[in-house]
């Protein structure tokens, strides 16, 4: 009897595995027929529907497969796409990027975030890109070439944003959480650019993605943009610079500097009623000369002038981004959270929410910068001086 029970138990366990051959659930898939989708693009279709574009990764030197279909919902568009690919099973469990078109973002991305949260195929840490002034489908379909896919392009953008600008490509979870918490969020923007701009031999239809600042989401819909410079200003304000470069010009001095690091602090000044009167933001930037703009000794005057130019430039970007935040009354920069972390008791005792106070708060931004000599090279090569 024990043997019979053991055999029955083993059989019942087999029913729960893939050995069931599809008898238990409808998602059984042959592994050699899977077409692994790596990027999906979402655009707003006619009558509020969805235009879904998908791009599979390249395998064995084959060009990536791209498809597009329109349906009343993402699920139905997926079903339609599957109809177009009878020999393959479209497999969405390894999606690395989600691209959303401007039209869809203006209408609201809440339902797409909700879909990502509900679907067992998607991961909540999937980065989301917004196509500024364009459709996601154009990027997904147009960026596919013989030697690359849109996923390669977007992963390159992600590296660029994170390493050069010290910024972030926000994930579905981060956007959803920020929208829940403050009612506003940022989403990384890209612009479609013709590939012929960099490669004259490229097909005219080929496009690539160029980082283009961030989109501002308010109550899940696109409310505006901040420029790449303003985005960098916000990165400085959070103490992050990346290792990207900046062009500086101060009178007769010009140079390209590469950023080395930043320190930032926020100090609120509280009014008697507990609300915030001012916020003093202090940022210290460090950079090194990457490329002198002219052949002249890098003396102290030059470096001091460049220090001032870097500080002025950064201050302008930060102020511009904060002014946008005040105008929209949207804390997309997450300043409220940063203040709550440092001053939790006073923050929670405020008579009005931080977002409500935002238009009335005065920001005093002070930026100090120090431009050094990369590799301690005193003068440009070819001039007297050289390394110390």
């Amino acid at each position, binding site marked *: 009897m024990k043997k019979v029970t053991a055999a029955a138990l083993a059989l019942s366990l087999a029913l729960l595995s893939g050995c069931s051959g599809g008898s238990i659930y409808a998602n059984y898939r042959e592994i050699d027929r899977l077409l692994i989708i790596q990027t999906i693009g979402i655009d707003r279709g006619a009558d509020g529907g969805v235009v879904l574009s998908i791009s599979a990764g390249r395998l064995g030197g084959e060009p990536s497969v791209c498809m597009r279909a329109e349906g009343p919902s993402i699920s139905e568009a997926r079903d339609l796409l599957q109809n177009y690919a009878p020999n393959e099973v479209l497999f969405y469990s390894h999606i690395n990027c989600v691209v959303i078109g401007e039209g869809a973002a203006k209408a609201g991305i809440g339902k797409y975030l909700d879909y990502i949260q509900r679907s067992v195929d998607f991961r909540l840490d999937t980065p989301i890109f917004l196509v500024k002034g364009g459709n996601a489908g154009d990027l997904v379909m147009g960026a596919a070439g013989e030697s690359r896919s849109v996923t390669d392009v977007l992963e390159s953008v992600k590296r660029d944003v994170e390493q050069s600008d010290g910024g972030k490509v926000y994930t579905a979870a981060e956007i959803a959480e920020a929208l829940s918490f403050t009612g506003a969020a940022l989403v990384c923007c890209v612009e479609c650019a013709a590939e012929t701009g960099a490669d004259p031999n490229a097909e005219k239809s080929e496009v690539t993605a160029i980082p283009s600042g961030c989109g501002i989401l308010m109550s899940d819909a696109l409310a505006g943009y901040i420029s790449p410079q303003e985005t960098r200003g916000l990165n400085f304000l959070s103490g992050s610079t990346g290792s990207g470069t900046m062009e500086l010009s101060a009178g007769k001095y010009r140079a390209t500097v590469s950023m080395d690091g930043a320190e930032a602090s926020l100090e609120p000044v509280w009014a008697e009623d507990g609300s915030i009167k001012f916020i003093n933001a202090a940022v210290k930037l460090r950079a090194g000369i990457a490329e002198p703009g002219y052949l002249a000794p890098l003396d102290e005057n030059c470096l001091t002038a460049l220090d001032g130019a870097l500080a002025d430039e950064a201050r302008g970007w930060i102020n511009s981004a904060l002014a946008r935040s005040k105008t929209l009354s949207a804390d997309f920069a997450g300043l409220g959270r940063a203040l709550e*972390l440092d001053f939790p008791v006073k923050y929670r005792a405020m008579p009005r929410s931080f977002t409500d106070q935002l238009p009335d708060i005065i920001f005093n931004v002070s930026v100090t910068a120090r431009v050094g000599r990369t590799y301690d090279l005193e003068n440009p090569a070819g001039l007297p001086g050289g390394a110390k």
Partner: protein
Amino acid sequence: MNGREKSAPGRLRAMCSMVLLAPALRLIPGRAAAYSGGACWLSMAVAAPFILLDIWFLSAFMKNRAPGEGMSELLCRALGRAAGGAVSALFSLWFVFYCGFILRSGADRFISTVYPSSAPWVFVGVMLFMGLAAALGAEKTLQSAAAVFLPFMAAALTLVLILAFTTVSAENLLPVTAADAVPVLKGAAPAADVCCAILTDACFLEGGSVKSPRRFRDWSLWLIPQLVLMLALCAVTVGNFGGELTAKMNYPFFAMIRSVRIIKSVERIEALVVALWVAPDFVLVSMLLIIASRTLMKCAGYVSREGGAALDMTHGRFIIWLCALGAGLVSVFIAPDSFALELFSAKIIPGLNIALIFVLLPACFVAGKIRKTI
């Protein structure tokens, strides 16, 4: 002892640790975050005194047991055969009902996390069959199986938590101020509810264990790793998603696993992890069937006999089949969809649990003391 071989109390505690994993992973991060947001990790520490109070009460109750006696025998002694039998039978019905709920919610977890659009009945049927097979055997065997499973489960959970910890954002967990005191206190309720339920279940099985002279100390020490585990679960899940988002999810821990990557090369391990959680469900279902059937057997005047052939219906062993049938029926009729299941999970099950554990059981204890029967 009625022919039952006594097991070490340590094995019973190992089984309880195993059983705790099932409701802890299903309930704790989401429910605690709903009450106390990003500060919910602190709720696990706040739950400690309440659970310790329950351990103290149960230890005071179980101190009165004679060798071989469990909670059901104590209830009969405290209240008299008729009233005690009725209360024991009520607890049995509760265990059958809870077993049916666990069967259905376990299936729902599979459907929500790995097998969308599937019917729950295969999962319910297989788990019920496995639980019945275990309940027909000796409870000591189940305790041994739990003791074997536990290190594997602990290792898997530790690995997942470590991997997920790398993406935790401190901003999602801090700050915590005095204003969080009440929400944190509320957030302690799910942890206290789950732990106290399992501690009470354990009392019904203590008749099969050697009586420990230091019961309070032993179970208090048992509580420490359980609370650390629940604290880590909350901290890692909420640290990844934030309090708001975590509270909105049905199974935030399993949603988090979807994003776990091992050295940027192995991903989508959630199916494996969800499948691993069959083991705690299996132990919990089996344990509930064992408690319910043994208690009902005693109420019906049968002398419990461990082991035996599966189809042996003598000595009241048909009651095990009846309990399994009852649990199966409950799982079929309890909730047509996950929304209805959520109502049971959030309101009805905790409410009934609290009524039985914190009202009925202390009342029985007091009655026994007044009657001087315990």
